[in-house]
């Protein structure tokens, strides 16, 4: 489904990511682990189209989307839950969700809203509440819901557990499991590498922009007990 080949990205003269490659099938999850500045977010942003790669390709369902702008990639099925949630605080929960799926036909909007509310009943209860007044966990749910409104094939999730309570983090992972059951592929960045590696099928360990290790998540040298940070 998603094939990333020899991705290299830089910010000005600084190369933030060297030669990252992987493939991901429908319903598979990939964890990106590594210290701060390792290049995890750069890889995510390069796939989403927010960082223009220096070289390499992003292929989604056999279509090369490397040169396609980010908003078109989103329409093709690349959903992104950005670091820090970044919900629109002055829009209500429902308006945030509608904005999330605006590129898809209006006729399916209510169905997609219902699907999101099925996954996150709390968002239904707070549909008319301003997003800025939600708790951190609820905002994370809203960020997920907003990305789901796009009917994504691949979800990129940057720092899923940042600033959240352990209970809420567990809820987020439970939601990811549901998404995986819907055949959505997941690329996950989490500072809590144990949680990410327990959840994912595959893993890439990045260090200073280089792929240090790559393989099955359960075999990752950083899994269970290893301290990355």
């Amino acid at each position, binding site marked *: 489904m998603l094939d990333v080949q020899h991705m290299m990205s830089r910010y000005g003269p600084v190369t933030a990511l060297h030669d990252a490659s992987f493939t991901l099938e429908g319903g598979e999850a990939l964890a990106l682990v590594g210290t701060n500045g390792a290049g995890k977010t750069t890889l995510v942003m390069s796939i*989403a189209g*927010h960082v223009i790669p220096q070289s390499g390709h992003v292929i989604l369902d056999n279509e090369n989307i490397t040169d396609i702008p*980010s*908003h*078109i*990639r*989103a*329409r093709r099925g690349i959903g*992104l839950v*950005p670091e820090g949630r*970044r919900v*629109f*605080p*002055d*829009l*209500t929960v429902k*308006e*945030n969700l*509608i*904005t*999330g799926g*605006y*590129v898809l036909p*209006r006729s399916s909007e209510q169905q997609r809203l219902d699907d999101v509310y099925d996954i996150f009943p709390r968002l239904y209860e707070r549909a*008319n*509440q*301003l997003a800025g*007044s939600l708790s951190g966990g609820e905002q994370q749910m809203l960020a997920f819901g*907003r*990305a789901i409104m*796009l009917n994504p094939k691949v979800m990129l999730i940057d720092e899923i557990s940042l600033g959240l309570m352990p209970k809420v983090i567990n809820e987020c992972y439970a939601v990811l499991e549901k998404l995986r059951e819907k055949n959505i592929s997941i690329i996950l960045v989490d500072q809590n590498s144990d949680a990410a590696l327990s959840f994912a099928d595959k893993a890439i360990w990045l260090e200073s922009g280089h792929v240090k290790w790559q393989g099955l998540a359960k075999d990752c040298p950083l899994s269970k007990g290893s301290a990355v940070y």
Partner: protein
Amino acid sequence: MAYEMIVLTNMLIAILFAQSLNLITGFCGQVSLGHAAFLGIGAYTSAMLTKAGWPLAATFIPAMVIAGMIGMIVGAASLRVRHDFLAITTMGVSFLFTGIIRKQDMLGGEMGIAGIPAAYGGRVGLLLMTLCLTILFIIIMIYVKRSWMGYVFESIAEDEDTAGVLGIDVRRFKLFAFVLGTAGAGLAGALYAHQVRFIGPDSFGFVESVTVLSMVIVGGIGSIWGVTIAAALLSVMPQFFQVIDDYKLLVYGMLLFFAMRFMPDGLGGLAKRFRQNRNPDSSSERSQA
């Protein structure tokens, strides 16, 4: 009675003009310091056409189209800049417009255009026409604000990077807001030209752009009713207090400063807080318009 009609028509034109900027700055977050240029484009287009024998109503579309088209060019050129840089770019448009007009003999140059024909129905006709068009524009604004397009505009105003993440074509919507807003200013200009019946480059300078921006800021960026009230008050005040007209840039500049320092949400924000104090349960719910 004639004086009251003039004041009322001026007020309605100011409301229409301020709402057209509210669409760009309030809804879509694009600061413009050159909006008066588009008022001028509409005014000159309409004045030239009515002097050539067109009825006023028939000049509205050309005034809006030409202002909107030039707005599209300015908007397209401004897409790469944000915030302060956008403000400076649009300020340049204002100076560019007056600079060009001054050198065009065809447009009256420094002397402007005099003897613009009166609207059909005289002052009453113009007042009714302005009232209808202003109400129509406000209805469109309310519709846009409550539709998915309004949510998209607001998402761009709040965080355009995240809006792009969601598949929103940020550039297209910013441009669309610019075209719609500048076309609205063109319409206000057409009405203005036939209200004053004399236009010159000085009528559309930087001071006018600051004036209309202060109406939007004092009213509350993005608030339709707040901007309507602020535009009504600020357009009428110089009629009663000559000092305001004499020191317009100073007065409106200070107003902008104090509004941004002490009342950043403007009148719209004040009204919202008042409602929340009366009904605390609604504090986290969205207020419309």
